[in-house]
């Protein structure tokens, strides 16, 4: 298989940008919060931007600046940051069957966040192979740049923004659950899948409500997978639009 030509990739990147737009509703308010907290913790604007651009993993960034500000040992800060991000190891293998050969993938993996994975996992199988590199580039780049821009905004004007438009910061993040709902609904293809996915959502929700957000994602997903293997409900055929098993 030869590398996908750049001209064919370019036809997909605009689609990727367009389809990743809903992510902005969740990314920008959270990035603004990070920028604000980071500067309040004593980091400069440039340092805040470097953390957002290079680590680029929401929850672990909050932990990183929080632990540094509280005087935790550096090795422990790094270890905890990586521990939170361990969940990323299952993302690339899950989308790998739909990644055509290209020398760009190793670089593009920097953009494989929770949200970009969820979007890519649903959309890549539906796209022709020639548009997938471009699509991923467009979606991941928009998400990355919006995260950096939001962090900058938060670092230089976070306090002013949150006091002037408090409702905006409360409403816009709803774009994330709305998007994930749209991405996961086509997977409810049988009672077995519905039960496993329902258990996963419920456990993740409970973990968040009890302050265990970081462990919530891998723990809930593991419980859901276990549920899938343990239960033997009749497989009822349903709509399989855009879905895999």
């Amino acid at each position: 298989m030869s590398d996908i030509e750049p001209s064919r990739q370019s036809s997909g990147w605009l689609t990727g940008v367009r389809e990743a737009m809903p992510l902005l509703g969740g990314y920008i308010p959270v990035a603004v919060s990070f920028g604000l907290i980071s500067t309040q913790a004593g980091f400069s604007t440039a340092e805040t931007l470097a953390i957002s651009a290079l680590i680029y993993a929401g929850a672990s960034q909050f932990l990183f600046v929080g632990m540094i500000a509280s005087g935790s040992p550096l090795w422990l800060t790094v270890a905890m940051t990586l521990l939170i991000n361990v969940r990323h190891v299952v993302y690339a293998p899950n989308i790998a069957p739909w990644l055509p050969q290209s020398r760009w993938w190793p670089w593009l993996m920097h953009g494989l966040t929770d949200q970009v994975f969820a979007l890519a996992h649903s959309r890549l199988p539906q796209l022709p192979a020639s548009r997938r590199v471009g699509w991923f580039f467009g979606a991941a780049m928009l998400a990355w740049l919006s995260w950096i821009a939001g962090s900058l905004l938060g670092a230089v004007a976070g306090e002013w923004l949150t006091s002037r438009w408090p409702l905006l910061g409360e409403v816009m993040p709803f774009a994330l659950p709305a998007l994930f709902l749209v991405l996961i609904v086509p997977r409810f293809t049988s009672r077995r899948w519905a039960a496993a996915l329902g258990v996963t959502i419920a456990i993740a929700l409970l973990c968040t409500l009890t302050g265990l957000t970081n462990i919530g994602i891998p723990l809930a997903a593991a419980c859901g997978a276990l549920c899938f293997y343990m239960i033997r409900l009749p497989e009822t055929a349903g709509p399989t639009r855009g879905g895999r098993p």
Partner: protein
Amino acid sequence: MSLSLWIAMIIAALGTYLLRLLPLLWIQRRLTRTDDDGPVDALPKWLVILGPMMIAAVLGVSLVPRTADVPGWLATVIGLGVTLAVWRRTRSLGWPVVAGVFTFGLMVVATRMVV
């Protein structure tokens, strides 16, 4: 930031990047070896199941509203209902999200005025 802090940050960044990259390199080698089976069949079954579960988990984590009071939860439930209804009609990504966020915002404002 001091030099040691910069080094710690770069190690954290590099480690996070490798957590995303190395599994790709591993699975690509596996896919190349088992190309005849088709790409999805070459994936371990647990991995195929874990993918949708991770998305469901991210959904569960994101469901908690910023202000987790009665208006916040009510707006979340109704917003999700509208998102689902619009998705069933359009089967698209963008419009259901726009409709859901708009409804959520309206509900937050409306319920705060009543409750």
